[in-house]
Protein backbone atom coordinates (compact mmCIF):
# COMPACT_ATOMS: atom_id res chain seq x y z
CA UNK A 1 0.00 0.00 0.00
CA UNK A 2 1.50 3.33 -0.96
CA UNK A 3 1.72 5.70 1.97
CA UNK A 4 1.85 9.45 2.38
CA UNK A 5 2.70 11.62 5.36
CA UNK A 6 0.27 13.26 7.75
CA UNK A 7 1.61 16.79 8.01
CA UNK A 8 -0.25 19.74 9.41
CA UNK A 9 -0.64 22.86 7.26
CA UNK A 10 2.06 25.24 8.47
CA UNK A 11 0.70 28.19 10.46
CA UNK A 12 1.98 31.45 8.92
CA UNK A 13 3.48 32.92 12.08
CA UNK A 14 4.22 36.37 10.64
CA UNK A 15 0.65 36.93 9.50
CA UNK A 16 -1.42 39.65 11.16
CA UNK A 17 -4.26 37.08 11.17
CA UNK A 18 -2.43 35.37 14.03
CA UNK A 19 -3.61 38.28 16.21
CA UNK A 20 -7.17 38.01 14.95
CA UNK A 21 -9.74 36.12 17.01
CA UNK A 22 -10.51 32.70 15.43
CA UNK A 23 -14.25 33.56 15.64
CA UNK A 24 -13.65 36.54 13.33
CA UNK A 25 -11.83 34.25 10.90
CA UNK A 26 -14.70 31.76 10.99
CA UNK A 27 -17.15 34.60 10.25
CA UNK A 28 -14.97 35.85 7.37
CA UNK A 29 -14.66 32.36 5.88
CA UNK A 30 -18.39 31.75 6.11
CA UNK A 31 -19.10 35.16 4.54
CA UNK A 32 -16.74 34.35 1.65
CA UNK A 33 -18.39 30.94 1.20
CA UNK A 34 -21.83 32.58 1.13
CA UNK A 35 -20.63 35.16 -1.42
CA UNK A 36 -20.28 32.46 -4.09
CA UNK A 37 -23.96 32.88 -4.92
CA UNK A 38 -23.33 36.46 -6.15
CA UNK A 39 -23.38 37.32 -9.87
CA UNK A 40 -20.11 37.98 -11.72
CA UNK A 41 -19.49 41.74 -11.11
CA UNK A 42 -20.24 41.50 -7.38
CA UNK A 43 -18.33 38.24 -7.09
CA UNK A 44 -15.32 39.78 -8.83
CA UNK A 45 -15.31 42.62 -6.27
CA UNK A 46 -15.53 40.21 -3.33
CA UNK A 47 -12.88 37.90 -4.83
CA UNK A 48 -10.50 40.82 -5.43
CA UNK A 49 -10.91 42.04 -1.83
CA UNK A 50 -10.46 38.49 -0.53
CA UNK A 51 -7.32 37.99 -2.64
CA UNK A 52 -6.00 41.29 -1.27
CA UNK A 53 -6.65 40.10 2.28
CA UNK A 54 -4.88 36.78 1.61
CA UNK A 55 -1.83 38.60 0.21
CA UNK A 56 -1.78 41.17 3.03
CA UNK A 57 -2.07 38.39 5.60
CA UNK A 58 0.73 36.38 4.01
CA UNK A 59 -1.45 33.31 3.46
CA UNK A 60 -1.60 33.63 -0.34
CA UNK A 61 0.97 30.88 -0.81
CA UNK A 62 -0.96 28.11 1.03
CA UNK A 63 -4.16 29.29 -0.66
CA UNK A 64 -2.45 29.09 -4.07
CA UNK A 65 -1.14 25.63 -3.20
CA UNK A 66 -4.69 24.57 -2.32
CA UNK A 67 -5.98 25.88 -5.67
CA UNK A 68 -3.07 24.26 -7.53
CA UNK A 69 -4.07 20.85 -6.16
CA UNK A 70 -7.40 21.17 -7.94
CA UNK A 71 -5.94 22.55 -11.17
CA UNK A 72 -7.11 19.65 -13.36
CA UNK A 73 -10.68 19.95 -12.07
CA UNK A 74 -10.60 23.74 -12.57
CA UNK A 75 -9.22 23.43 -16.10
CA UNK A 76 -11.71 20.77 -17.24
CA UNK A 77 -14.65 22.66 -15.76
CA UNK A 78 -13.52 25.98 -17.24
CA UNK A 79 -13.10 24.51 -20.74
CA UNK A 80 -16.39 22.62 -20.56
CA UNK A 81 -18.28 25.73 -19.36
CA UNK A 82 -16.61 27.89 -22.01
CA UNK A 83 -17.37 25.47 -24.87
CA UNK A 84 -20.93 24.66 -23.85
CA UNK A 85 -22.21 27.90 -22.24
CA UNK A 86 -19.80 30.79 -22.75
CA UNK A 87 -16.72 32.53 -21.41
CA UNK A 88 -18.57 34.71 -18.86
CA UNK A 89 -20.20 31.63 -17.32
CA UNK A 90 -16.85 29.79 -17.30
CA UNK A 91 -15.21 32.71 -15.46
CA UNK A 92 -18.13 32.93 -13.00
CA UNK A 93 -18.05 29.23 -12.10
CA UNK A 94 -14.26 29.14 -11.85
CA UNK A 95 -14.25 32.21 -9.61
CA UNK A 96 -16.96 30.71 -7.39
CA UNK A 97 -15.07 27.44 -7.12
CA UNK A 98 -11.80 29.24 -6.35
CA UNK A 99 -13.45 31.34 -3.63
CA UNK A 100 -15.14 28.31 -2.06
CA UNK A 101 -11.90 26.32 -2.19
CA UNK A 102 -9.73 29.00 -0.61
CA UNK A 103 -12.18 30.64 1.80
CA UNK A 104 -11.37 28.43 4.79
CA UNK A 105 -7.63 28.83 4.23
CA UNK A 106 -7.96 31.99 6.36
CA UNK A 107 -8.63 29.78 9.36
CA UNK A 108 -6.49 26.75 8.73
CA UNK A 109 -3.31 28.60 7.70
CA UNK A 110 -3.36 31.05 10.60
CA UNK A 111 -4.95 29.25 13.55
CA UNK A 112 -3.60 26.53 15.80
CA UNK A 113 -5.93 23.67 16.80
CA UNK A 114 -5.78 24.91 20.38
CA UNK A 115 -6.99 28.37 19.35
CA UNK A 116 -9.80 26.76 17.37
CA UNK A 117 -10.71 24.73 20.44
CA UNK A 118 -10.97 27.93 22.50
CA UNK A 119 -13.06 29.58 19.78
CA UNK A 120 -15.32 26.53 19.71
CA UNK A 121 -15.84 26.76 23.46
CA UNK A 122 -16.69 30.47 23.17
CA UNK A 123 -19.14 29.67 20.37
CA UNK A 124 -20.95 27.19 22.59
CA UNK A 125 -19.29 23.90 21.60
CA UNK A 126 -19.26 21.71 24.73
CA UNK A 127 -15.77 21.85 26.31
CA UNK A 128 -15.56 18.05 26.29
CA UNK A 129 -16.08 17.97 22.52
CA UNK A 130 -13.54 20.76 22.07
CA UNK A 131 -11.09 18.77 24.23
CA UNK A 132 -11.79 15.69 22.10
CA UNK A 133 -10.83 17.68 19.01
CA UNK A 134 -7.56 18.81 20.61
CA UNK A 135 -6.88 15.20 21.64
CA UNK A 136 -7.59 13.94 18.14
CA UNK A 137 -5.19 16.48 16.70
CA UNK A 138 -2.51 15.58 19.24
CA UNK A 139 -2.96 11.89 18.40
CA UNK A 140 -2.38 12.26 14.65
CA UNK A 141 1.39 11.77 14.74
CA UNK A 142 1.19 8.91 17.23
CA UNK A 143 -1.56 7.15 15.30
CA UNK A 144 0.43 7.46 12.11
CA UNK A 145 3.53 5.95 13.71
CA UNK A 146 1.51 3.15 15.27
CA UNK A 147 -0.31 2.45 12.02
CA UNK A 148 2.99 2.28 10.13
CA UNK A 149 4.42 0.01 12.83
CA UNK A 150 1.44 -2.35 12.50
CA UNK A 151 1.77 -2.32 8.72
CA UNK A 152 5.47 -3.20 8.86
CA UNK A 153 4.98 -5.84 11.54
CA UNK A 154 2.18 -7.54 9.60
CA UNK A 155 4.14 -7.36 6.36
CA UNK A 156 7.10 -9.00 8.12
CA UNK A 157 4.69 -11.83 8.97
CA UNK A 158 3.56 -12.01 5.35
CA UNK A 159 0.22 -10.39 6.12
CA UNK A 160 -0.96 -7.19 4.52
CA UNK A 161 1.27 -7.29 1.46
CA UNK A 162 -0.71 -8.02 -1.65
CA UNK A 163 -0.24 -7.55 -5.36
CA UNK A 164 -1.60 -4.19 -6.47
CA UNK A 165 -5.18 -4.28 -7.72
CA UNK A 166 -5.82 -2.51 -10.96
CA UNK A 167 -9.64 -2.64 -11.03
CA UNK A 168 -12.30 -2.51 -8.35
CA UNK A 169 -13.80 -5.83 -9.43
CA UNK A 170 -10.51 -7.46 -8.37
CA UNK A 171 -11.29 -6.46 -4.79
CA UNK A 172 -12.03 -9.75 -3.04
CA UNK A 173 -13.00 -10.87 0.44
CA UNK A 174 -9.39 -12.04 0.95
CA UNK A 175 -8.20 -8.46 0.38
CA UNK A 176 -10.63 -7.19 3.01
CA UNK A 177 -9.52 -9.93 5.41
CA UNK A 178 -5.93 -8.77 4.86
CA UNK A 179 -6.89 -5.20 5.77
CA UNK A 180 -8.69 -6.58 8.87
CA UNK A 181 -5.31 -7.81 10.12
CA UNK A 182 -4.11 -4.20 9.96
CA UNK A 183 -7.19 -2.51 11.40
CA UNK A 184 -7.79 -4.75 14.46
CA UNK A 185 -4.45 -3.94 16.20
CA UNK A 186 -4.96 -0.25 15.35
CA UNK A 187 -8.35 -0.29 17.08
CA UNK A 188 -6.91 -1.95 20.18
CA UNK A 189 -4.03 0.55 20.34
CA UNK A 190 -6.46 3.45 19.82
CA UNK A 191 -8.58 2.21 22.71
CA UNK A 192 -5.57 1.95 25.01
CA UNK A 193 -4.54 5.47 24.00
CA UNK A 194 -8.03 6.86 24.69
CA UNK A 195 -8.08 5.15 28.06
CA UNK A 196 -4.71 6.58 29.14
CA UNK A 197 -5.66 10.11 27.96
CA UNK A 198 -8.95 9.86 29.84
CA UNK A 199 -7.19 8.80 33.02
CA UNK A 200 -4.63 11.60 32.68
CA UNK A 201 -7.38 14.18 32.04
CA UNK A 202 -9.39 12.97 35.04
CA UNK A 203 -6.29 13.16 37.23
CA UNK A 204 -5.90 16.81 36.17
CA UNK A 205 -9.48 17.63 37.15
CA UNK A 206 -10.92 17.67 33.63
CA UNK A 207 -14.41 16.74 34.81
CA UNK A 208 -14.39 19.25 37.66
CA UNK A 209 -17.32 21.70 37.58
CA UNK A 210 -14.89 24.40 38.77
CA UNK A 211 -12.75 24.00 35.67
CA UNK A 212 -11.90 27.31 33.91
CA UNK A 213 -10.06 27.91 30.66
CA UNK A 214 -6.59 29.40 31.16
CA UNK A 215 -7.10 31.74 28.22
CA UNK A 216 -10.22 33.64 27.25
CA UNK A 217 -10.70 35.01 23.74
CA UNK A 218 -11.84 38.61 23.32
CA UNK A 219 -12.71 40.52 20.18
CA UNK A 220 -10.30 43.43 19.70
CA UNK A 221 -10.12 46.48 17.44
CA UNK A 222 -8.60 44.48 14.57
CA UNK A 223 -11.50 42.00 14.76
CA UNK A 224 -14.10 44.77 14.68
CA UNK A 225 -12.28 46.44 11.76
CA UNK A 226 -12.17 43.19 9.77
CA UNK A 227 -15.82 42.40 10.45
CA UNK A 228 -16.86 45.94 9.48
CA UNK A 229 -14.80 45.78 6.27
CA UNK A 230 -16.37 42.42 5.36
CA UNK A 231 -19.86 43.79 5.99
CA UNK A 232 -19.02 46.83 3.84
CA UNK A 233 -17.67 44.76 0.92
CA UNK A 234 -20.62 42.36 1.04
CA UNK A 235 -23.07 45.29 1.31
CA UNK A 236 -21.58 47.02 -1.72
CA UNK A 237 -21.51 43.78 -3.70
CA UNK A 238 -25.19 43.14 -2.92
CA UNK A 239 -26.01 46.67 -4.09
CA UNK A 240 -24.11 45.94 -7.33
CA UNK A 241 -26.37 42.96 -8.11
Amino acid at each position, binding site marked *: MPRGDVRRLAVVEGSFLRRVDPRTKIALSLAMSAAVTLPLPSLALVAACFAGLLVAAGVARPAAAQLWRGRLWFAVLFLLDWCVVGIAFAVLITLRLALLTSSFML*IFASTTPDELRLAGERLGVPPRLAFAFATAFGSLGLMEREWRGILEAQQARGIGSAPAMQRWWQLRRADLARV*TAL*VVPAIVL*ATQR*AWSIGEAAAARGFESPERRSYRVLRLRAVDHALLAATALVLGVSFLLR
Partner: protein
Amino acid sequence: MGRTYFSTFELLLLAVFAALVVVGNVALRLPLKMPGHSGVVWMALLVIARGVVPKLGAASSVGLLSGLLAAFVGVGDKGGLDTLLSYTAAGAGVDLVSGLAPLGLAALGLAPPGALTCAVAGLVGNLAKLGVKVLLELWIGIPTGFLVLGRTYPALTHTVFGLAGGYLGALVLAALRRAGFFAYLAARR
Protein backbone atom coordinates in the same frame (compact mmCIF):
# COMPACT_ATOMS: atom_id res chain seq x y z
CA MET B 1 -21.61 17.33 37.09
CA GLY B 2 -24.72 16.10 35.27
CA ARG B 3 -24.77 12.90 33.26
CA THR B 4 -23.50 13.40 29.75
CA TYR B 5 -24.50 11.56 26.60
CA PHE B 6 -20.99 10.28 25.83
CA SER B 7 -18.69 9.44 28.73
CA THR B 8 -15.26 11.08 28.64
CA PHE B 9 -13.71 7.75 27.67
CA GLU B 10 -16.19 7.29 24.82
CA LEU B 11 -15.58 10.82 23.57
CA LEU B 12 -11.81 10.32 23.66
CA LEU B 13 -12.22 6.98 21.93
CA LEU B 14 -14.18 8.70 19.16
CA ALA B 15 -11.49 11.40 18.97
CA VAL B 16 -8.76 8.83 18.51
CA PHE B 17 -10.90 7.09 15.90
CA ALA B 18 -11.12 10.44 14.09
CA ALA B 19 -7.33 10.63 14.08
CA LEU B 20 -7.26 7.06 12.71
CA VAL B 21 -9.66 8.06 9.91
CA VAL B 22 -7.38 10.90 8.79
CA VAL B 23 -4.22 8.81 9.13
CA GLY B 24 -5.93 5.96 7.26
CA ASN B 25 -6.95 8.31 4.46
CA VAL B 26 -3.50 9.82 4.11
CA ALA B 27 -1.13 7.04 5.06
CA LEU B 28 -2.98 3.85 4.23
CA ARG B 29 -4.37 3.67 0.74
CA LEU B 30 -5.38 0.75 -1.37
CA PRO B 31 -3.41 0.72 -4.62
CA LEU B 32 -6.41 1.75 -6.70
CA LYS B 33 -6.60 4.89 -8.80
CA MET B 34 -10.37 5.21 -8.62
CA PRO B 35 -12.73 7.76 -7.09
CA GLY B 36 -14.09 6.79 -3.70
CA HIS B 37 -11.57 4.02 -2.99
CA SER B 38 -10.50 5.75 0.23
CA GLY B 39 -14.00 4.84 1.44
CA VAL B 40 -12.92 1.25 2.10
CA VAL B 41 -10.82 2.05 5.18
CA TRP B 42 -12.76 5.25 5.99
CA MET B 43 -16.23 3.68 6.08
CA ALA B 44 -14.84 0.65 7.90
CA LEU B 45 -13.52 2.92 10.67
CA LEU B 46 -16.83 4.81 10.90
CA VAL B 47 -18.79 1.55 11.12
CA ILE B 48 -16.34 0.25 13.76
CA ALA B 49 -16.64 3.51 15.74
CA ARG B 50 -20.43 3.12 15.70
CA GLY B 51 -20.07 -0.52 16.77
CA VAL B 52 -17.62 0.22 19.58
CA VAL B 53 -19.62 3.21 20.90
CA PRO B 54 -23.18 2.05 20.16
CA LYS B 55 -24.89 5.44 20.55
CA LEU B 56 -26.59 7.61 17.96
CA GLY B 57 -24.18 10.38 17.00
CA ALA B 58 -20.99 8.37 17.53
CA ALA B 59 -20.13 8.10 13.83
CA SER B 60 -21.24 11.71 13.24
CA SER B 61 -18.88 12.87 15.99
CA VAL B 62 -16.03 10.93 14.39
CA GLY B 63 -17.00 12.44 11.02
CA LEU B 64 -17.05 15.99 12.40
CA LEU B 65 -13.78 15.63 14.30
CA SER B 66 -12.02 13.93 11.40
CA GLY B 67 -13.33 16.63 9.04
CA LEU B 68 -11.77 19.33 11.21
CA LEU B 69 -8.52 17.38 11.43
CA ALA B 70 -8.46 16.73 7.69
CA ALA B 71 -9.01 20.43 7.00
CA PHE B 72 -6.06 21.26 9.27
CA VAL B 73 -3.90 18.67 7.56
CA GLY B 74 -4.95 20.08 4.19
CA VAL B 75 -6.56 16.89 2.84
CA GLY B 76 -8.74 17.31 -0.23
CA ASP B 77 -8.45 19.49 -3.28
CA LYS B 78 -11.67 21.48 -2.90
CA GLY B 79 -10.98 23.37 0.28
CA GLY B 80 -11.77 23.23 3.97
CA LEU B 81 -15.54 23.59 3.70
CA ASP B 82 -15.87 20.67 1.29
CA THR B 83 -13.57 18.54 3.47
CA LEU B 84 -15.41 19.39 6.69
CA LEU B 85 -18.88 18.81 5.27
CA SER B 86 -18.07 15.62 3.37
CA TYR B 87 -16.39 13.99 6.37
CA THR B 88 -19.31 14.97 8.61
CA ALA B 89 -21.87 13.73 6.08
CA ALA B 90 -20.12 10.36 5.85
CA GLY B 91 -20.38 9.97 9.62
CA ALA B 92 -24.01 11.09 9.64
CA GLY B 93 -24.83 8.60 6.87
CA VAL B 94 -23.33 5.72 8.85
CA ASP B 95 -25.15 6.89 11.98
CA LEU B 96 -28.45 7.13 10.18
CA VAL B 97 -28.38 3.57 8.85
CA SER B 98 -26.94 2.14 12.07
CA GLY B 99 -29.64 3.92 14.07
CA LEU B 100 -32.58 3.12 11.82
CA ALA B 101 -31.69 -0.43 10.79
CA PRO B 102 -32.33 -2.06 14.19
CA LEU B 103 -35.73 -0.33 14.39
CA GLY B 104 -36.66 -1.37 10.85
CA LEU B 105 -35.45 -4.93 11.29
CA ALA B 106 -37.27 -5.27 14.62
CA ALA B 107 -40.47 -3.93 13.05
CA LEU B 108 -40.19 -6.52 10.29
CA GLY B 109 -39.41 -9.27 12.79
CA LEU B 110 -36.01 -9.92 11.23
CA ALA B 111 -32.67 -10.75 12.82
CA PRO B 112 -30.67 -7.96 14.51
CA PRO B 113 -28.31 -5.93 12.31
CA GLY B 114 -25.23 -7.73 11.03
CA ALA B 115 -22.81 -7.59 8.14
CA LEU B 116 -25.48 -6.47 5.67
CA THR B 117 -26.45 -3.49 7.83
CA CYS B 118 -22.79 -2.54 8.20
CA ALA B 119 -22.28 -2.79 4.43
CA VAL B 120 -25.35 -0.61 3.79
CA ALA B 121 -24.13 1.88 6.41
CA GLY B 122 -20.79 2.06 4.59
CA LEU B 123 -22.59 2.50 1.28
CA VAL B 124 -24.77 5.35 2.59
CA GLY B 125 -21.78 7.00 4.28
CA ASN B 126 -19.65 6.90 1.14
CA LEU B 127 -22.52 8.16 -1.02
CA ALA B 128 -23.25 10.94 1.50
CA LYS B 129 -19.64 12.07 1.09
CA LEU B 130 -20.12 12.21 -2.67
CA GLY B 131 -23.54 13.81 -2.20
CA VAL B 132 -22.02 16.75 -0.32
CA LYS B 133 -19.61 17.37 -3.18
CA VAL B 134 -22.48 17.28 -5.68
CA LEU B 135 -24.59 19.65 -3.54
CA LEU B 136 -21.71 22.13 -3.24
CA GLU B 137 -21.21 21.95 -7.01
CA LEU B 138 -24.92 22.55 -7.57
CA TRP B 139 -24.78 25.43 -5.11
CA ILE B 140 -22.04 27.24 -7.02
CA GLY B 141 -24.09 26.81 -10.19
CA ILE B 142 -22.42 24.02 -12.15
CA PRO B 143 -25.05 22.81 -14.64
CA THR B 144 -26.83 19.61 -13.63
CA GLY B 145 -26.00 17.98 -16.97
CA PHE B 146 -22.27 18.34 -16.31
CA LEU B 147 -22.71 16.86 -12.87
CA VAL B 148 -24.66 13.87 -14.18
CA LEU B 149 -21.96 13.37 -16.79
CA GLY B 150 -19.09 13.77 -14.37
CA ARG B 151 -20.49 12.06 -11.28
CA THR B 152 -22.12 8.88 -12.63
CA TYR B 153 -18.95 6.80 -12.65
CA PRO B 154 -17.79 8.10 -9.22
CA ALA B 155 -21.26 7.26 -7.86
CA LEU B 156 -20.81 3.67 -9.03
CA THR B 157 -17.32 3.33 -7.53
CA HIS B 158 -18.43 5.04 -4.29
CA THR B 159 -21.23 2.46 -4.05
CA VAL B 160 -18.85 -0.46 -4.47
CA PHE B 161 -16.17 0.87 -2.10
CA GLY B 162 -18.75 2.00 0.44
CA LEU B 163 -20.25 -1.50 0.54
CA ALA B 164 -16.75 -3.01 0.79
CA GLY B 165 -15.82 -0.58 3.58
CA GLY B 166 -18.95 -1.33 5.56
CA TYR B 167 -18.38 -5.05 5.14
CA LEU B 168 -14.76 -4.61 6.24
CA GLY B 169 -16.11 -2.83 9.32
CA ALA B 170 -18.34 -5.84 10.03
CA LEU B 171 -15.36 -8.20 9.64
CA VAL B 172 -13.28 -6.13 12.07
CA LEU B 173 -16.12 -5.91 14.60
CA ALA B 174 -16.52 -9.71 14.40
CA ALA B 175 -12.78 -10.17 14.88
CA LEU B 176 -12.80 -7.81 17.87
CA ARG B 177 -15.76 -9.66 19.37
CA ARG B 178 -13.97 -13.01 18.97
CA ALA B 179 -10.85 -11.54 20.60
CA GLY B 180 -12.83 -10.45 23.67
CA PHE B 181 -12.37 -6.75 22.93
CA PHE B 182 -15.89 -5.79 23.99
CA ALA B 183 -15.46 -7.43 27.41
CA TYR B 184 -12.22 -5.45 27.80
CA LEU B 185 -14.06 -2.31 26.74
CA ALA B 186 -16.92 -2.91 29.17
CA ALA B 187 -14.39 -3.06 32.02
CA ARG B 188 -12.96 0.31 30.85
CA ARG B 189 -16.37 2.06 30.69
